[in-house]
């Protein structure tokens, strides 16, 4: 059952001992001890497990680990490094937070916080292709992510704030 797969997560290559068909989520959590991606439904319905695969949001709970070998995975833990890389800077220590994480703190988005890792991952995907999203753009892009505490209005606010910071950072 055990395989000799290797996966690249947050800039580092890891050996995987799980079976090829094991969903990526369980490898990230149980072998790599990353706690950003979380189990919410196991059915790709809620987005709590989201990670970036080559910069695009992916549901790790239904993606077999074998499908992501040779590609680049980013979890919430990897967002600061991703931001440093985007600005072609060496990661500082401690790493400067991604503008989305900073905005999440400043706006005070989380309530229970369980869904927020997936929310920031999806927002990172959105802002990588749409640097000035409108409210409708944000509502459409985030629609696949469920929050039961009702933090949607504050997520909307935080994404706008992060977009403004990132636009300045690039200029």
């Amino acid at each position: 059952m055990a395989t000799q797969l290797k996966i690249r997560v947050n800039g580092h290559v890891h050996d995987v001992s799980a079976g090829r068909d094991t969903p990526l989520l369980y490898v990230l959590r149980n072998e790599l001890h990353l706690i950003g991606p979380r189990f919410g439904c196991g059915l790709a319905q809620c987005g709590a497990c989201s990670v970036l695969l080559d910069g695009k949001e992916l549901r790790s709970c239904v993606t077999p680990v074998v499908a992501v070998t040779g590609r680049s995975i980013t979890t919430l833990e990897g967002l600061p490094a991703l931001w440093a890389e985007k600005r072609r800077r060496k990661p500082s220590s401690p790493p400067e937070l991604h503008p989305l994480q900073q905005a999440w703190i400043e706006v005070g988005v989380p309530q229970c916080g369980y869904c927020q890792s997936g929310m920031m991952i999806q927002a990172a995907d959105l802002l990588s292709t749409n640097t000035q999203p409108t409210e409708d753009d944000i509502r459409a892009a985030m629609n696949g992510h469920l929050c039961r505490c009702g933090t949607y209005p504050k997520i909307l606010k935080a994404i706008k704030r992060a977009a403004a910071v990132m636009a300045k950072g690039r200029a």
Partner: protein
Amino acid sequence: MTNLFEKEFSRRAFLKGGGALIVGFALARVGVSDSAASPGAPLPISNDQVDSYLTVHGDNTVELFSSIMERGQGTRTSLLMIAAEELDVGMDQISHAHLDTSTTPYTGLAGGSQGTSIGGSFVRAAAASARQSLLGLASANLGVPIARLSVERGVVSGRGRKVTYGELIGGKLFNVKIPEHRQRNDLGVFQYVVRAGLEPGEAPAKPVDQYKLVGKPRPRVDVPGIVTATLPYSGDVRLPGMLHGRVVRPPGQSSLQNKATPGGPFGTNYTLELLAGGGQKVLSVDESSIKHIAGAQVVRVGNFVGVVAPDEWNAIQAAAELKVRWKTPSSPLPGNLEEALKAAEPGLPASTPIPGPVSPLLITEMGDVEAGLAKAAKTVSSTFRTSYLLHGPTGPHNAVAHVTPTKATIYHQCGPNYGLAAQGVAQAVGLPPASVREISYQGSSFYGGASTDQDCPTAAAVLSKAVGKPVRVQFMRWDDMGYDNYDAAEVIHVRAGVDATGKITAFDYIAHSQEDAAQPPSAINTGGVYLIPNRKVVGNVSPRIFMTAPLRSPMDRGPALATEQIVDELAYATGTDPLEFRRQNMTGNTRWLEVLDAVAKAARWKPGRAAAKLSDASLVTGRGFGFGTHAYGGGPQGPGLDFRTLDPTTPAAAIADIEVNKKTGKITVKHVYAAVAPGLVVNPARVEDQVIGTAVMGTSQALMEEVTFNESNVTSSDWVTYPSLRFKDHPNVTPIVIQHLDAVPGGCGEEPISALFPAIANAFFDATGVRVRQAPMKPAVVRHVLANASH
């Protein structure tokens, strides 16, 4: 570290009346060692000692022990603010200790709108007493009278001399009792309990006008950890040698009636029976069906079936593939829910493990309803319905249990009743409650309790006991949805009348609902806001279809939906603006008027009769108002009692702006204005979060949430079969939090939900001229009421 452990040793030995206790419980980032864990009885820590709540360390930092779990509402930050305020230390000098039944005193429910209001009073009393004690020590130490001392950031100064709290008491115990307090009981204004605690400003607590922290907005202390994935949640706990477990059962629970057994309603071990099999008996288990899965092992205890495996994915597959034959349930679920709920159940026998009220329950009676209706110039009469609702955390519950022959430790997110899960585990694995220790982490919020938060650790413990190793159980999405204890559905009949001067003359309210949680309809949400001379409110206990448990604002949605629509109907019948009609009928309680005026102002309410601008367009808009709160109306109440005195209860008012697509039947809530007046607001920014959160959750529940079932079992088992409001359709929210520094703090995590249900329904009438009297107001329901109204 050694010092800390020695300190902790003496603290616990003292608090528990002596006895050798091993400490040194070490918490790693994503791993926990419980090798040295000691068992602790549920709620073993004395409630009347400062040392139960506070430890001052030599480095002049303070550790607070409270049993209020953070459930996403910022309550633990608010409690730190209260303690820091009373002690005069900075927020950077104080932190919360881990919630652990072997070290933490009981500080009330983390629910029922009580986390900050009542939990805060325990913390305030401890901190105020600690400060007094520290001033006494400082006076002796510095040779300066107490009256000449001042404190800043835990440094006591007087006559040019200084000493820190840490220098005064670091490493030592206070050995000081905290004041007692007379508190209104949950279940009624006329019952009081005496417990430890102080209200804001109540001596020896600090006068409210000297507050520096409390009452001002503050960020939550845990948010940076959440946003950077450095705060471990319950789901991140791993123990050495741990196996992964899953429960095996049919896809959704069957009727509770199937659980009746000759030995009592739930047999001798009802904790386990409630969890097992959905009321269905196991006929056979084919263990060979999973023999191809590495390390998978079946555990069967009575009708409980589970699997364990070293690898989590293997455990999930084994649970899915294990062949189990279940006996078909003998009692079907009702085809007609309304009829089933109205088949009133007689008073339950005293031996019933979950106490229920006697039916029917008279909540309040004033004057003569029939005479009042006879006197009315106009009368209205309607039936309202709500559905069973799911708690539905984003992440289903998870728990790690380590059971040995003599003790058990469980790691999970505890529910509002701290220590309750440990009691269920004790029963299921046959250990005395004192031998089960419960350690709690943050987790996905479940907005209520008493269901999966007990079932999941019980399942983990039963599996751990069977295999002799620590076991982690992560409930799957269908475990959470199919086996939750739902919020009770209701059927409500209301008749009311108004006289020629626009005064309400009579209000007659009869509800039918399961009331397992002993929560009759609130006397406030059933017309208590208004001065009605003839009023009667009756709750009938329905037969138990499912296990039910309170869900954020329990037993408030139906009453508010019914009452505030009836009041709107009376306003319409008299040709009056809905807000003006309310003003002329209200009791004169200024806080209710205040929230009404606040939302009206924020929304720029234009007075006028509802449904004045109806249109033939398929897309129409409307605006509606509603009042609501969360208050229990039970207890020893009788005819003639007036509930105007039921403070402190937090009033809420909401205005909803909606859009109705008459063709598709889809309602979209575009904007919610919601106001609360909770009395003293400890952290206004976090209360605004609660108003926003409850507005979004209330919209979701009012428009689309409903537990569905067929004859044999529950069929809503994921986010497709139980839809929840998505990002695209969420309303913009204008939260209004009214601060009253001089008032006792009330709740604020539930109240706007019940105000919003009728606000949306009244907006629907404003938009269409038609009443929608049931929730959820799904497109099919909307199309139905519109079609019926047009012939």
